[in-house]
């Protein structure tokens, strides 16, 4: 049975799209048929991160309006055979999405995909709501700072109260915490919240920690999901996240400050 996973956060700029791109790529690299949908209608970014912006002809709104078939709008990823992208519309706004249309698309995708990753826009308005409504599982992307944690808390509350699973009284949406832009050094000198601090507030299982790194910026600018970057901590961290999501028991890495010795051992970034 296909799983719908929403990548959400409440706050903007915390790494939802970066995570959606790497996470869906990681799932596909393991042989799962995966599709990633950009719900950020009007501010589409996912296609840039995935490096397929020049191949966007049709988008999710065209499919919802019945202008084209789903097959016509899906773009095959350049790096992974099993990965497809459904881009957002650049010229419309979020009101063009509607719940029946989204449900129709998801139902059709469920027939041929194992995982459907929904990249949510920031905020708690209709776009974010549409992205999360049909979710089976949720990746809550949080930065180690108080405003991001509070917004994640708000999103978790909405998931628990307003998602389809909550409204229909089904098993609740399975929640995963993903801490991004983590800098152990700044945690140690008190400038950032620690993973423990964040978990103490949000109290959901930790799926992974992605370290703060220059390579994320390089990856975005070159249109390659960070998980494909050679010799990068971020790529390793995202591979761990996917592994844990698939049920592997992997130790948490990148939560402690690197020592010179480890730096040499792990090859740095």
């Amino acid at each position, binding site marked *: 049975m296909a799983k719908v996973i929403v990548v959400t956060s409440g706050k903007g700029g915390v790494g939802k799209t970066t995570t959606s791109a790497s996470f869906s790529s990681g799932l596909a690299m393991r042989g799962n048929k995966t599709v990633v949908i950009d719900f950020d209608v009007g501010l589409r970014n996912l296609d840039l991160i995935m490096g397929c912006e020049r191949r966007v002809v049709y988008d999710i709104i065209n499919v919802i309006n019945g202008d084209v078939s789903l097959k016509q709008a899906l773009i095959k990823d350049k790096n992974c055979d099993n990965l497809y992208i459904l881009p957002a519309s650049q010229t419309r706004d979020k009101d063009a999405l509607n719940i029946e249309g989204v449900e129709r698309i998801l139902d059709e995708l469920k027939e041929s995909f194992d995982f459907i990753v929904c990249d949510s826009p920031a905020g708690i308005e209709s776009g974010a709501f549409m992205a999360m409504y049909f979710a089976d599982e949720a990746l809550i992307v949080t930065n180690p700072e108080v405003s991001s944690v*509070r*917004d994640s*808390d*708000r999103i*978790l*509350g*909405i998931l*628990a*109260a307003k998602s389809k699973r909550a409204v229909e009284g089904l098993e609740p949406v399975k929640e995963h915490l993903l801490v991004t832009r983590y800098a152990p050094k700044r945690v140690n000198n008190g400038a950032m919240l620690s993973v423990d601090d964040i978990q103490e*507030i949000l*109290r959901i299982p930790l799926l992974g920690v992605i370290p703060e790194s220059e390579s994320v910026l390089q990856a975005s600018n070159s249109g390659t999901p960070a998980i494909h970057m050679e010799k990068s901590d971020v790529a390793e961290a995202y591979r761990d996240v996917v592994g844990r999501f698939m049920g592997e028991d992997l130790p948490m890495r990148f939560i402690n400050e690197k020592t010179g010795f480890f730096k040499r051992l792990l090859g740095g970034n």
Partner: protein
Amino acid sequence: MTQEEPAFKIKTGNVSVLQLHLLSTDLTRFKKELVVRLAQTPDFFASRPIVLELSGITGSDCCPDFAELVRFMQGHGMCAAGVIGGSVLQREDAIQAGLGIFPEAIIRVAKVEAALAEAVEIREVEKIAVPALTQPKPTLVIDKPVRTGQRIYAEGASLVVLAIVNAGAELIADGDIHVYAPMRGKAIAGARGNEAARIFVNSMEAELLSIAGCFKVFEEGIPENVRSKPARVHLDGSRLLIEPLLY
């Protein structure tokens, strides 16, 4: 042939009503003070039924003129529905004036208990009467985290939360509030004015505490002696007291 629906049903129901405690049989004084009180909140009563509580004047041989009292109250938008307590004489006078007699719940329970010890046959009958009279609304129990932006209201009841209450979340209860986890949001107990309501928390980290409208915020942080510790909150006059929960 279809059976016709009955025109009415008789059921017992628990409703909360306002009680007006009569503390004096002097009607002139009563009228004067009531007018002053009503001037502060003119629409407060707005045709809500009111029960006259007479325990304060039970000892008095004097009977207030209930007919006159009812008329005066009606003239001020108050609707007297009946009396509770009072002497036998006072209750008879109240019936004469067209008022109902409310049974005194506490006395009834004592009677039931006495009856329980004596007769099995009576127990079956009395048992039915007790829940309708004294059973409070069930406590609302929440076992999932209460998160930023969420608001939980236990209407006419107490509230128990078994999971974390985060900053920006709101707990409201007409009765007591218990939180058996860190309490970081707002807790508003006795929301409809119950001054006896209390708040108990496992770890005091609240943003705001309120009992019967008397509230406290913690701009300077929570006092050291209760910060992140088990604590209880109650109202002492118009002061909100937060004390460590020692055990």
